[in-house]
């Protein structure tokens, strides 16, 4: 190890609590990038973040209650009134639009980023309590994950310089 490596050696933990299409990005982008920068990364998936470990991902999003969400449209940026979100199919449409936009702009899919996380040896912990609460089974989840609870996370966090809650 060179001196630079030692000075920069770091570890990071992220608590992943949200599993919608838009909220799945920050933890996976920061996690994979940190790991690519030789930072040891642990991701703890809890509550609505837990389904991000399911083998088959079907991420959705909604503009409901998100006043800051404006989509580019004909050279402008348009928000969506909450009442429109009540109409069946609107969320599915918004999700499809977002996925198309992402593909067009060369933004990675969550599936790709998760695969990169596995390749980069990111430690992924599934919250046991959430598994019980929402009745998930490890057999439906990707290989290589660990099970753990708050103490497992805290031990990791206390040894990490960077700890994020997303």
């Amino acid at each position, binding site marked *: 190890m060179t001196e630079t490596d030692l000075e*920069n050696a770091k570890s990071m933990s992220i608590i992943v609590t949200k599993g919608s299409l838009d909220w799945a990005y920050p933890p996976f982008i920061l996690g994979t*990038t940190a790991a690519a920068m030789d930072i040891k990364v642990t991701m703890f998936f809890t509550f609505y973040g837990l389904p991000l470990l399911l083998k088959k991902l079907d991420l959705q999003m909604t503009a409901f209650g998100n006043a800051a969400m404006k989509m580019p449209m004909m050279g402008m940026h348009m928000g969506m009134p909450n009442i429109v979100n009540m109409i069946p199919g609107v969320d599915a449409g918004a999700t499809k639009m977002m996925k198309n936009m992402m593909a067009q702009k060369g933004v990675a899919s969550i599936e790709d980023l998760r695969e990169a996380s596995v390749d980069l040896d990111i430690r992924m912990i599934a919250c046991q309590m959430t598994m019980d609460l929402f009745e998930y089974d490890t057999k439906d989840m990707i290989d290589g994950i660990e099970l753990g609870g708050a103490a497992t996370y805290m031990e990791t966090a206390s040894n990490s310089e960077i700890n994020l809650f997303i």
Partner: protein
Amino acid sequence: MADQTLDAKGLNCPLPILKAKKTLKSMSSGETLQILSTDPGSVADFEAFCRQTGNELVSSSSEGDTYTFLIKVAA
């Protein structure tokens, strides 16, 4: 001439970094990797990436919409 070239054009953050890391991992110390990107954010990002990982950013330039980086694998 670089030992290897990575075409990351059209890819957005953080893919150019992730793909660069994957390629650098397979290379030996002292070898050079040329990366082509169209992501304006990759200019600052490759500088930060190299400072953190200890790989050397030999050059960073742009022509038209394309950014070119030359990274030398750390000893």
